[in-house]
């Protein structure tokens, strides 16, 4: 049920998600480009109808970082429908994962946020930057089969799905570790005399155990 809903939201909300995520893609692409002779100009969504629309990253590649003029101008693109694969898988796993309390659920979702941003940089942003690496290799007279291209091929061959699943499980483990530590701290605080200022006991996690291994 949740998965069907996630797929429907993914199919219908691809454009809205891409619009929301585009500034982050641009930011992450610019951060990665700092280490290369690449210039990221803008990330935009084409104005076609939703299913056929693509996310485009426009920029330039120089032979050397100190060159005044770019050697090539590039536009790389990804289908919006393909773009939402990672978020659909990642957030579906986190939402389906059992959490004993609402507090644990919120911890899980908040912990998932930085993991998800890393996942998006490793998948979507890297795929958008692959043509830039290709152009750099060609301009340098090197083999165009760069690590970027191999990574992009890996993502296309199911790696995007595999990484999203693994990242979701990492977020689950991280949230469980945070929850266990908070419960341990609360348990120790209960055994010691109550401090004059601190968390009321009602806010302590109800169980100190780790998250259940299986999702619902």
């Amino acid at each position, binding site marked *: 049920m949740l998965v069907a809903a996630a797929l429907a939201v993914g199919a219908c909300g691809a454009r809205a998600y891409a619009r929301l995520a585009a500034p982050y893609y641009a930011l992450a692409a610019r951060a990665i480009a700092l280490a290369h002779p690449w210039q990221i100009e803008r990330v935009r969504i084409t104005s076609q109808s939703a299913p056929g629309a693509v996310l485009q990253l426009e920029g330039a590649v120089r032979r050397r970082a100190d060159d005044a003029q770019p050697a090539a101008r590039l536009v790389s693109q990804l289908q919006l429908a393909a773009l939402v694969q990672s978020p659909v898988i990642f957030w579906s796993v986190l939402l389906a994962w059992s959490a004993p309390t609402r507090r644990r659920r919120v911890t899980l979702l908040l912990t998932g946020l930085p993991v998800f941003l890393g996942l998006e940089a490793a998948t979507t942003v890297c795929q958008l930057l692959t043509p830039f690496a290709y152009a750099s290799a060609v301009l340098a007279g090197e083999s165009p089969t760069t690590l970027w291209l191999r990574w992009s091929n890996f993502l296309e061959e199911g790696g995007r799905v595999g990484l999203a699943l693994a990242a979701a*499980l990492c977020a689950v483990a991280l949230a*469980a570790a945070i929850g266990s530590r908070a419960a341990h701290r609360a348990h120790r605080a209960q055994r010691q005399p109550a401090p004059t200022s601190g968390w009321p006991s009602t806010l302590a996690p109800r169980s100190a155990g780790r998250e259940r291994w*299986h999702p619902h």
Partner: protein
Amino acid sequence: MNASPPLRFGLIFILLFAILAGAFEASRGTALERVMVVDLVIVPTAQVLNAITPDEPVELHGRALVSGAARLNVTRGCEGVELLLLLAAAIGAFPASLWHRLRGLLLGGLLAYALSIGRLVALDLVLRYAPGGWQAMHGLIMPLAPVIILSCYFLHWSGVAVAGAGAAAQAHQSHAT
């Protein structure tokens, strides 16, 4: 420090998948890859399509399924091999007996194979009869729906593995007492 079960599973899963995907990528252009992709996936897909739509026969042009004006190119990521690799990595990463793993891989492999062919058949039919839905089907629904079905199979398989291990431990305990 002991990694928690989800983290350990996630790390072993992605490592195994990377190894398997790398091995498959290394086989590109070889006879093995041709057998796995063309002979075992694309040719049976064309046969299924011809059985479903005999009035509009499908021809195989290299790695493309061509029928009338529609041409479905079966490229990297559409071949369905990744479904089998994902399942194999998941089964390899989950703690279970060798026998249970082999059984899971065999049944799951058959399911992954059927899903691969079903996905290509569905994509070809969408391309021919409902091209308006192509982008959503090709970009999101068709890559993820088989993964979701395989995930359900894996969850069932892992549940049986955990129950089997629990029953074995109980039997061992009652023998000891």
